[in-house]
């Protein structure tokens, strides 16, 4: 099954983190991505730019609204994602627990809604 791992973290906190903590985190992510790829679980994944670069679009009653900023103001913001192939949700949770983001924020595990032919 395919799962999304949605990585949420405190953007402001990350931005204020000391340089060596940032380096340590980035290299942990490189290793994590490598481990996902080597085990054949990796399908996709990327880091997102901070929410200040976000634009939200919504069409109501035929009128398009374009807003600066993210969809919702939350304490932790969506910072990146992985799409993985996992045997079942337990395996997906095991990968989420290994994600470096799980020890600084929250990793949400969501199954992909597969279209059945």
């Amino acid at each position, binding site marked *: 099954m395919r799962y999304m791992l949605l990585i949420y973290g405190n953007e402001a906190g990350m931005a204020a983190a000391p340089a060596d903590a940032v380096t340590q985190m980035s290299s942990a992510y*490189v*290793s*994590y991505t490598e481990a996902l790829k*080597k085990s054949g679980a990796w399908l996709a994944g990327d880091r997102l730019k901070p929410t200040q670069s976000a634009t939200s679009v919504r069409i109501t009653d035929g009128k398009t609204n374009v807003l600066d900023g993210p969809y919702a103001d939350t304490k932790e913001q969506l910072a990146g994602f992985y799409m993985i192939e996992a045997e079942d949700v337990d395996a997906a*949770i095991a990968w989420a627990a290994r994600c*470096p983001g799980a020890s600084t924020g929250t990793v949400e595990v969501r199954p992909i809604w597969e279209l059945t032919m």
Partner: protein
Amino acid sequence: MTGQESDTARAAAEATARQSYGKLVAYLAARMRDVAGAEDALADAFAAALERWPQTGVPGKPEAWLLAVARRRRVDAIRRRLTSEASRDHLRLIAEEMEARMTDEDLPDERLRLMFACAHPAIEAGVRAPLILQTILGFDAATIASAFLVSPATMGQRLVRAKARIRETGIPFRVPERAELGERLDAVLEAIYAAFAEGWSDPAGTETRSRNLATEGIWLGRLVASLMPDEPEALGLLALMLFAEARRAARRNAVGDYVPLAEQELVLWDGAMIDEAETLLRRAAAKGVVARYQLEAALQSAHTARRLTGRTDWIAIKHLYDALSVIAGSPVVSINRAVAIAEADSAAAGLSALDELGGDKRLADYQPYWAARAGLLARLGKTPEAAAAYDRAIGLERDPAVRRFLQERRAGLGRAEKA
């Protein structure tokens, strides 16, 4: 009360509440053959005890208190929603019988029988430890789920299914006869060890929702060892857990960094706990039946002997792993055996022992395999391969402290030769 005193009071109240709760659940369940029914009857009373006893102190007769509250809170109303009339009446009769007994004697301890029911072969192996934690210690599904890294909803369903199976299959609440005892006791001990190991892998206790399962595992181990004092493996398991637990404080330094066994400060080891473990292991060995947990405890004993001799006897450790891989071989045992070979003989010999495991697919996503491999490759000066193995280990690690440690080792690769 100071914060620390109130923590102590809470811990004492919780321990008694769990002790009494487990005994009552076991007593009820054994007679009704219905774990879920017994839990339902006592759930409210147990919650009330966890809330009130830390403030009021533990009552003189904790079981009687729980039972009285359970009755006052209309056990029958809860029962009506959940099960048939017949079992409700049955429960009421048992409760009356219990109250009568408790006036002049202690409630018989049926927890061992309950544990054998929970670890019955007809119950799926993966749910046995969670089931014991819930029925004997009263942990909720969410806490158990966090510890075993599954979703609370999934854990809840597994527990409900297992309890329904106990009732519907008519799984007996009894200690098995001698002929089948060995195998069945193994299942009980394995479940306890699984609970301990989950707690042991979270040394910092950073996960706020997961309780310290290592402590609970030891508690259950003590319970079984006290109820079956002549079973060498029950003693062996308790010794094993105590040896490991004794080193808990040494596994992290003051700033929370991971400290490997070889570099741990001996003064931080709990000497009294190690002595207790040694005594248990000697008692077990005196029974003359060597098996898995005794061997694992003997390995721990060999490692802790460093506090007396100042050195680690790797040859003895290697021989113990040889014996262990014959009677209870597993990838974990093989990896540790390879590390022992590396220490006793040479890094190259250790690495070739690891190479022999290369075909095992279970190891591809297993952090200790890659960490051991990386360490041996580094010692042999194979820097690029060591770096790749460290990367794999780092990417597979859950614990941030261990991850940092591995990252530092990786960053230090090649430095030794250049210096």
